């Protein structure tokens, strides 16, 4: 039996980037705010200090900072004709857990998505007509444009101390930045990071081929920095222990040392860690949320009433909670009706591994999570969809995130997996190989979705969420074509041997690919194809807002955290300046 607690004004479920931003921004309202985080508390000191954090086995191989699937996981199948089975260990993606969420162990690449990504349907139809869109593809616009979000992108970049070079300020294209980006009002808060040797080679090759390379926008601070909230960042150490790790230098922007301590300073804010939310409870009208049910570390059940509820868990966690709470109609691919779980998408990968002779010394271990050089010549709609044969390309980059040897000891294809020959190949190639990678968009499809599993349950007795996902023809064409482009670039870089890589098709949950799971609770202008309105407010239950990458109608050829953070600022602005003054739907349905 749940113990009913005293009501609060605002309840935040999950305290990573978006929950942290909202908690911090609402501090000035004097409202009573409670945040429930399923994992434990974490601080740079003592949790991420040097040298202990430089432990590849514990953090990268054993996933110390990530979700423990022994407690909750998902089931997975490629298509409806299969029986979904549990993801028994982490593989393809690595959701976070604990204060700061995946914001602690991300790599810090902080994009503004391309203008096309915000209006993918309109811009595609305008240029190519309806016919280019496959019949099973749910290509949807965002309900807001890039220009609407521009000030909030700027806000997030400044919070994160993002290091980069603008390619378009007030419509003026700037060589050396990304000339394909939407118009910015301001430069990045910090200059680009120092390029590694492989990036210098990639940049030269890309220019030789007529492309437009630029430094990755990186929230690994290129210099000491104090953000507009007064939070101090250290300069990045280029230690090469970044993604999957916490940062010892507070150089990699993370909510645990930026927005969250500011939220915690508010006397009206309370953080409850090790608190797992089981569901949101609605009143008899099903139009209003009244409370959440959660368990504390000892398994005691509580009911926490609140006027306003923010679901700010990981993308998959938010959709899971909506399904368990009966908020929004679950999507049914047979009828095409329903919205929760619809438009789940993922990320394409692949590319080329370039092997060089021994005179080329890369010092790959001098790296950082977001250290890379990228080009958008084949991303968004910067190329010809008809000629290429696919919609939504990808960013192509040469990244230098580190060379931790358990997981990074590249050998040319055909090398044995063990024995003396393997060892010799490891030694010969360890510091003479670079990767040129595609990070490709994934469109949404009728047949790719999230729902509840009929068989398997988590340790709390709830059905697991079921993922039905496969790469479709559009994405397969993209991965193959973009891998070929990566091969051309690797050749131009002077590689003596090149391996072309395409991710497994059908999609496999086993090898790590990307922690960019998107969709399932998308925002839009039409309640029949979206869960949320343009302010991330649930159409059916207006006192619930949902943040995170689950709101994207399809995935872009870019990392999601930039727009995820910007949309949190956008949503909390609407909550503060519109919703709290007059609680109710902010957009008529």
């Amino acid at each position, binding site marked *: 039996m749940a113990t009913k607690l005293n009501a609060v004004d605002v309840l935040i479920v999950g305290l990573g980037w978006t929950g942290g931003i909202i908690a911090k921004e609402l501090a000035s309202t004097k409202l009573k705010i409670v945040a429930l985080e399923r994992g434990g508390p974490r601080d740079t000191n003592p949790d991420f200090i040097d*040298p202990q954090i*430089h*432990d*590849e*086995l*514990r953090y990268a*191989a*054993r996933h*110390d900072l990530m979700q423990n*699937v*022994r407690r909750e*996981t998902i089931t*997975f199948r*490629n298509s409806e004709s*299969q*029986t*979904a*089975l*549990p*993801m*028994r*260990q982490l*593989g393809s993606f690595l959701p976070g857990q604990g204060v700061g969420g995946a914001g602690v162990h991300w790599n810090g690449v902080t994009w503004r998505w391309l203008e096309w990504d915000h209006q993918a349907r309109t811009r595609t139809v305008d240029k190519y007509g309806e016919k280019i869109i496959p019949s099973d593809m749910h290509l949807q616009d965002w309900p807001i444009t890039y220009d609407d979000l521009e000030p909030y992108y700027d806000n997030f970049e400044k919070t994160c101390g993002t290091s980069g070079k603008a390619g378009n300020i007030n419509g003026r294209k700037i060589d050396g930045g990304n000339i394909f980006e939407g118009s910015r009002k301001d430069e990045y808060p910090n200059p680009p990071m*120092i390029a*590694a*040797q492989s990036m*210098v080679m990639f940049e030269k090759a890309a220019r030789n081929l007529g492309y437009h390379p630029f430094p990755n926008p990186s929230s690994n601070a290129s210099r000491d920095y104090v953000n507009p909230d007064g939070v101090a960042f250290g300069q990045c*150490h*280029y*230690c*090469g*222990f970044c993604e999957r790790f916490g940062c010892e230098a507070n150089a990699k922007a993370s909510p645990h040392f930026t927005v969250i301590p500011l939220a915690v300073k508010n006397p009206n804010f309370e953080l409850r860690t090790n608190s797992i939310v089981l569901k949101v409870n609605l009143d008899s009208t099903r139009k209003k949320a009244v409370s959440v049910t959660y368990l504390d570390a000892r398994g005691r059940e509580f009911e926490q009433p609140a006027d306003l509820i923010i679901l700010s868990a990981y993308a998959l966690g938010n959709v899971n909670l909506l399904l368990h709470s009966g908020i929004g109609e679950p999507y049914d691919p047979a009828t095409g009706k329903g919205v929760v779980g619809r438009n789940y998408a993922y990320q394409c990968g692949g590319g080329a591994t370039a092997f060089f002779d021994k005179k*080329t*010394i890369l*010092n790959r*271990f*001098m790296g950082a999570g977001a250290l890379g050089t990228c080009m958008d010549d084949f991303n968004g709609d910067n190329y010809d969809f008809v000629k290429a044969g696919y919609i939504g390309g990808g960013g192509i980059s040469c990244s230098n995130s580190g*060379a931790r*040897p*358990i997981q990074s*000891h590249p050998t040319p294809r055909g090398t044995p*997996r*063990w*024995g*003396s020959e*393997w*060892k010799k190949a*490891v*030694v010969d190639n*360890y*510091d003479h190989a670079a990767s040129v990678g595609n990070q490709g968009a994934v469109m949404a499809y009728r047949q790719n979705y999230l729902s509840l599993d009929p*068989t*398997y*349950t988590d340790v709390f007795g709830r059905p697991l969420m079921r993922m039905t996902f496969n790469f479709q023809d559009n994405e397969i064409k993209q991965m193959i074509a973009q891998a070929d482009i990566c091969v051309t670039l690797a050749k131009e870089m002077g590689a003596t041997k090149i391996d072309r890589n395409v991710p*497994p098709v*059908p*999609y*496999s*949950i*086993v090898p790590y690919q990307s922690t960019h799971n998107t969709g399932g609770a998308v925002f839009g202008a039409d309640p029949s194809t979206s869960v949320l309105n343009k302010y991330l407010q649930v159409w059916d239950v207006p006192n619930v807002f949902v943040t995170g990458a689950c709101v994207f109608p399809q995935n872009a050829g870019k990392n999601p955290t930039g727009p995820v953070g910007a949309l949190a600022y956008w949503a909390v602005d609407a909550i503060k300046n519109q919703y709290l003054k007059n609680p109710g739907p902010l957009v008529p349905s």
Partner: protein
Amino acid sequence: MSTREKSQGDVGRRDFLKLFGAAGAAASTLPLGGSASADEMVTAATGKPDHQVADAPKSHVGYSGYEFFNVDESAFIEAAVDTLIPSDSTGPGAKELGVAIYIDRQMAGGYGKGDRLYLEGPFSEGKPEQGYQLPMTPSELIRAGVADVGAYVQKSHKSTFDGLSAKDRAAVMAELDGKKVELPTVPTATFFGLLLQLTIEGYFADPMYGGNKDRAAWKMIGFPGADAMYMDKIEPFRNKPYTADPKGIQDLI
């Protein structure tokens, strides 16, 4: 009095925590990827009060006993890792770097016991894309696989695996890798894949986990280890060799 209790009594709880971390001292079982056995804690704590554990040759985990494997199993594992990464002119082998001990500690610890594995039924083989679907923890899988391969070698070669010549051991491993043998209890590819994964992990992991003794695998490839601060080096060392004596985590504390 057990050795663990004794070791705490000898050095005092405060020093003990400083040496090995709270988890090792407080828990009755070792933490995930247990970094040290009770025996070596005693050796290190009493024999090397200046806390330079990694530099004390007698304290290296390679000199302590097996926690998880029995004598037949440890003989198999030592021979197996020696076959997968042999000692040769390129560099050290996995056995001499302590990788068998690494695997033993992993099997005895949280990872081996499935502390991050969803093990609820029903169980079904599924498609390869759906990943691992066995109702076994890593330690159960390794134990069963070692027994399976041992029985296979006994039948085919009238010998234990570790009793085979290096050439014959390599031939058996190649049969497993090529799925030429169907093992009765565990899927051959799953067992061989985990054995190889663990061997490579132990070879390249921080030495505090029992393998990569004296950071020898890092020295071999030129990875500078845990002492990683390159903000003033990344530009001057572009396309130039950077050499440093690699440091493990315990070398830096």
